[in-house]
């Protein structure tokens, strides 16, 4: 069994730097030297990725380096510093950092913010507290070990003396910097006072009063507004367009063709229309006439036909343990099923947008709602032929990420347009642009064949995965790790893969891969348990009780979440009555372990998900509110997305707005009860792990309530409506 202890296992050396500003403020920088394999790397080469400042009025400010997209990092990170520094939470303020290489990784993605930040945040807070204690102890002539703190104050119990932090800053700055290895870092929930409590978001006041926070809220002197019309068919180029006519329309200042590049993640071909207001730019667009040159004609019916044919072929074997064919031949019982899930869109509430301004010297400044601004800067530099050193990126709050904004097509588009126009430009995609030019979660087909022995144990698992590829490799978000369970949990295991060529742009979508294929596995486990005459929970716990070779899962942690969710839901302990079902599922991804039990009530083909009982182990909880928010959000997202699909015709998406891709409404949302197992592993992220098991918990409950096994999504394809 592999126990992942992120902070401790990442083998990075942390360093501290303490300095004093002219204002008298104490600044603590904490940074790391990434392992280079070069033993000669000196601490002097460290880069700071975190700054904490204590001002002479006792206030504490902390730079939040990662973009905030609703995952709560802007609140959670400063909480860790405040906990270790021992200050009142109300004295802490947060500044959003711009893109700056000194901060290291500045990405919203992979649920990595928490595991990456945990050590540095604690080191910065703890070191500062230790320096302040040492400063007071020196002043009082007592051993530092006899001193302690209460929020914002160093105390010496024996003499009854105390000193506020702000009075100790100058003395603290003169002391030697503590060795990181000597710091006693808090790590257990029993040591925390602020961590683990319910703390509202630091931007709440601004959100509730409508202050400018988001990318589309940026307003600059002389700024113009742009729309960018791209070919509905992916990869299409501009033949000709009536741009002269467009230029003469009211409010329009510029209209021009952008040839674009061959990079499907970069600058696409299209027509830019720039005007004094967005409404005028978009109104002019309705008069735009373009002859597009298209090459591709991908369609959903054609994908379906190809998948059907491929399912009958053998595919490429990615992994084979034991002898699946022999085990299936000798099995007491065989269970077979094929599952299908569709393409889906990220559908961020804030459509893609970005603001750019060139100065007279050719330097470029961005206000970018990007999950991965560094990669955006690099894309812009290479496409426009300018140096990365001449590009500055301000990070705005992001109106929903979910993986869409890991791509930076909107950054390169606005940069190109702003250079052409010679004035600051805000590019605002329409909702239709956003839905037609997403990097979709790819669809997939999974054919499973399981063999059971006489005891109803799964002894063989044959899996054929039909996914999408280009040039023989799965496209982004379409791959499946051969190491993933049930590999390692079944003695005879085989994974085969076949690819359908596509030009549909694809990419990571919240918990990429996991949020799709977990549904297939966990639904099929229910089918297997049923065929074996076993309880769905007992079958899973038994499956997790043995391993065959290396598994990527901590079987104990995941089993504990299963038991807890089941206990809270009263699994096996209550009469459900007619038309009511419970469904259970587990998963682990991005270092997090989550199980859900869903409770569904049915009226014919119409179902209501009444309640979901969730149990998660991501180590100690930092912000109880933020953690619950991610669990609740993931459950709602899972149910919402199980009703949705993006389909294609003539190489273009058929859905274009919320009327044909309608997100869940409030009346359809379940009650959600979250439980956390605060194990002693280092804390890890929650933006992704709760979503994958939520979908199968719901569809398994639908089976319980209706007798309909959901093997195709969206639910309507299986004749079920929410």
């Amino acid at each position, binding site marked *: 069994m592999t126990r992942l202890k992120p902070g401790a296992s990442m083998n990075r050396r942390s360093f501290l730097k303490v300095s004093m500003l002219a204002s008298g403020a104490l600044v603590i920088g904490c940074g790391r030297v990434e392992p280079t394999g070069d033993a000669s790397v000196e601490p002097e080469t460290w880069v700071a990725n975190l700054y904490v400042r204590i001002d002479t009025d006792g206030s504490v400010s902390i730079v939040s380096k990662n973009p905030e997209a*609703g995952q709560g990092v802007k609140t959670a990170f400063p909480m860790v510093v405040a906990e270790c520094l021992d200050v009142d939470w109300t004295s802490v303020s947060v500044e959003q950092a711009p893109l700056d290489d000194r901060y290291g990784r500045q990405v919203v993605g992979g649920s990595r913010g928490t595991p990456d930040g945990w050590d540095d945040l604690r080191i910065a807070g703890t070191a500062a507290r230790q320096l302040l204690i040492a400063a007071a102890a020196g002043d009082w002539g007592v051993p530092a070990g006899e001193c302690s703190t209460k929020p914002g104050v160093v105390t010496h119990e024996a003499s009854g003396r105390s000193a506020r932090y702000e009075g100790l800053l100058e003395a603290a700055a003169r002391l030697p910097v503590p060795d990181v290895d000597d710091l006693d870092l808090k790590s257990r929930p029993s040591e925390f006072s602020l961590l683990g409590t319910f703390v509202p978001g630091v931007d709440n006041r601004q959100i509730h009063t*409508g202050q400018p926070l988001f990318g589309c809220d940026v307003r600059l002197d002389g700024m113009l507004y742009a729309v960018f019309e791209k070919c509905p068919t992916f990869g299409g180029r501009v033949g000709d367009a009536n741009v002269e006519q467009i230029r003469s329309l009211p409010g329009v200042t510029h209209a021009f063709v952008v040839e674009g590049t061959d990079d499907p993640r970069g600058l696409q071909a299209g027509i830019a229309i720039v005007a004094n207001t967005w409404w005028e730019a978009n109104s002019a667009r309705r008069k735009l006439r373009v002859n597009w040159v298209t090459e591709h004609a991908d369609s959903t019916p054609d994908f379906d036909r190809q998948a059907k044919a491929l399912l009958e072929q053998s595919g490429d074997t990615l992994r084979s343990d034991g002898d699946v064919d022999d085990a299936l031949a000798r099995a007491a019982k065989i269970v077979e099923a094929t599952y299908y899930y569709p393409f889906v869109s990220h559908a961020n509430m804030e*459509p893609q947008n970005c603001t750019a301004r060139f100065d007279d010297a050719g330097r470029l400044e961005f206000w970018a709602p990007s999950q991965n601004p560094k990669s955006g800067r690099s894309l812009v530099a290479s496409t426009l032929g300018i140096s990365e050193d001449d590009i500055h990126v301000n990070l705005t709050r992001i*109106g929903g990420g979910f993986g869409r904004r890991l791509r930076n097509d909107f950054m390169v588009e606005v940069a190109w347009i702003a250079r052409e126009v010679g004035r600051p430009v805000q590019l605002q995609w329409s909702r239709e642009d956003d839905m037609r030019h997403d990097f979709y979660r790819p669809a997939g087909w999974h054919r499973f064949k399981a063999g059971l022995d006489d005891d109803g144990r799964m002894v063989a698992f044959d899996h054929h995965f039909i996914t999408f590829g280009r040039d023989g490799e799965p496209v982004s978000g379409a791959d499946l790790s051969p190491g993933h369970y049930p590999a390692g949990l079944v003695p005879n295991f085989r994974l085969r893969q076949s690819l359908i060529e596509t030009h549909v742009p694809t990419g990571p979508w919240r918990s990429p891969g996991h949020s799709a294929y977990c549904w297939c596995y966990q639904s099929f486990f229910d089918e297997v348990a049923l065929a074996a005459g076993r309880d769905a929970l007992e079958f899973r716990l038994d499956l997790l009780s043995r391993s065959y070779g290396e598994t990527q899962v901590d079987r104990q942690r995941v089993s504990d979440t299963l038991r807890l969710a089941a206990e809270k839901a009263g699994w096996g302990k209550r009469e459900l009555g007619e038309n009511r079902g419970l469904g259970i599922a587990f998963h682990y991804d991005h270092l997090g372990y989550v199980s859900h039990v869903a409770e569904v009530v049915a009226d014919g083909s119409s179902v209501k998900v009444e309640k979901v009982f969730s149990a998660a182990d991501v180590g100690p909880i930092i912000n109880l*509110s933020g953690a619950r928010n991610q669990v609740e959000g993931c459950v709602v*997202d899972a149910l919402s997305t199980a009703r949705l699909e993006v389909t294609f015709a003539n190489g273009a998406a058929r859905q274009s707005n919320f009327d044909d891709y309608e997100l*869940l409404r409030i009346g359809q949302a379940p009650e959600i009860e979250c439980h956390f197992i605060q194990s002693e592993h280092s804390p890890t992220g929650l933006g992704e792990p709760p979503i994958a098991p939520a979908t199968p918990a719901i569809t398994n409950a639908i089976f319980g309530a209706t007798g309909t096994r959901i093997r195709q999504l969206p639910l309507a394809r299986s004749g079920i409506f929410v």
Partner: protein
Amino acid sequence: MSNVTLRINGQSYTFNAPSDMPLLWALRDKLDLVGTKYSCGVGVCGSCTVLVNGAPMRSCMMPAAGMAGMEITTIEGLDPTGEHAVQRAWNDEDVAQCGYCQAGQILTASALLSRNPDPGDEDIDSAMAGVMCRCGTYPRIRKAIKRAARYASGEGGAS
């Protein structure tokens, strides 16, 4: 283009705008009142909700030029200090995740409470059905509206 005078958050604004420009874009691009958000542009998602004479309306669907004489309230005008009962409840339940749809949610909730000071779950689901949230804050919206009702009735929360 027409000359438009609107009453927004108790103030009078006069500006030139195309006669078909929706209130949403007049607010955002003419008046720099960017708290009102664009998301669908077709009256489906409710992100652009403002109050018109106290009732929640979709500003993406209403030409600004036709709104003279109406009392328009945007999120900036509900209570700029954030002390309205709904704003306080939204903070105390920590409703927002990304926050993008929340102006529409808060204004719609404040209109609900104005006409129904003690709404039940069905009242809430019905009144809030028009405002989508991609992050899934719906369970907290229900709790926050009930909390706001308590603030407004018993604790002097409404300002």
